[in-house]
């Protein structure tokens, strides 16, 4: 007990403020990014509980290695990288728990009240049908707001590949959407 008190005051206060700064940074990260991270996790695993678990693990790992995040501008892609790794770990742990799109609704059925909701649900199913290599860049662009370069870096692809995949992903969705609209008009 005596030894710690004999240390210099100055170093004590810097240790304390270091802890406080870390705490503040962590809370700012939660505030700024937890919602987008949850949504991203949700699209990766399509299960609310698993998505939350993945986000919890991601932020816990972020907290532990927060000191390694030097540039706060890179915070979001840093978190996404941790999250993707965390999600991959989940697959290593259990490879059997794959979700079948057909038996699985990505939204609450009872929430399907308005036309808007029906449209959302329809689109979610189409997004679900995209192959993962097209879906993931699209999620990063729309939910994450990342640029082509940033997505390329996150997914370790070159930028042209990313842009091509983004183009194809939207092209597929828009095609399906237009076909569905036409069918709706014919039926109506």
């Amino acid at each position, binding site marked *: 007990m005596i030894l710690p008190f004999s240390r210099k005051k100055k170093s004590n206060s810097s240790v304390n403020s270091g802890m406080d700064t870390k705490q503040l940074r962590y809370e700012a990260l939660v*505030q700024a990014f937890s919602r987008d991270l949850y*949504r991203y996790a949700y699209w990766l695993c399509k299960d609310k509980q698993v998505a939350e678990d993945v986000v919890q693990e991601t932020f816990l790992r972020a907290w532990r290695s927060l000191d390694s995040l030097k540039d706060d501008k890179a915070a979001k892609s840093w978190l996404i990288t941790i999250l993707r790794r965390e999600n991959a770990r989940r697959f290593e742990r259990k490879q059997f728990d794959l979700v079948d799109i057909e038996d699985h609704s990505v*939204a609450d059925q009872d929430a399907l009240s308005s036309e808007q909701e029906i449209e959302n649900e329809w689109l979610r199913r189409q997004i679900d049908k995209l192959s993962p290599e097209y879906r993931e860049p699209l999620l990063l662009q729309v939910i994450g707001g990342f640029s082509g370069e940033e997505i390329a870096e996150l997914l370790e692809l070159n930028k042209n590949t990313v842009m091509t995949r983004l183009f194809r992903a939207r092209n597929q969705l828009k095609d399906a959407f237009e076909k569905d609209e036409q069918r709706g008009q014919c039926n109506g």
Partner: protein
Amino acid sequence: MDELEFRRQLYANPRDRSDALLAAIKDSPKNQKFYDELQQFEGKLQRAMEVDVPDGLSERLRLRQSFAAPPAKPKRPRWHMALAASVAFAMGIGVSTLNPFTAGQPSMSLGDVALDHVYHASPYITGTDERPSLQTVNAKLARYGEAFEQLPGQVVFVNHCNYHGSPAFHMVMRSEQGSDVNVFVVPQTVDLPSSSAFSDSKMHGMVSQLSDANLVIVGEKAEPLDGLLHKIKGQLNQSI
């Protein structure tokens, strides 16, 4: 920019506002129409992707972190210590009144709790072999921020346990000598005095620090623990 290139660029990034693109919109009513339609579609896409976020998510993230944060080290000015002491005292009263497990054990160490736990649990565990898989073990261990790369030996039992009123990881291994070795991963929030080795008349144990937890192992006196402790730590994956 030709029409095909225009569409290709917009599909790849509907938020693109480059000069070339804006000029192409201005040039052709057809492009303008395509652009407007795509913006509308993009709105729909965004709404569909923005699934509901569960209530209280950010609060739960803060809570989880507060448990994971290392406890305050005795580096603070005196009044902090005094405050911490009175809080600890008040909590001590609360915990010892409410929690029969810890009642009447005011000065236990990390090792004492482990020994106590082993004596209490051994009638239920001796002779069992539940053969938990690596996945089962890691599913329990994840809560304490750790994971095994591989099981460090023959594991016969794994569960969460009550460690001085707090959840901890408890695993029982069968040693090469055939005796049971108890392994605990105790979160650092369990703030008990500890020493790297402890023993009583029958058992002995060792404590080693992990990033956010203490690793405690207990075995019979005749059981050499050094090597096993090393092996367990070697298989624990503490990297990001």
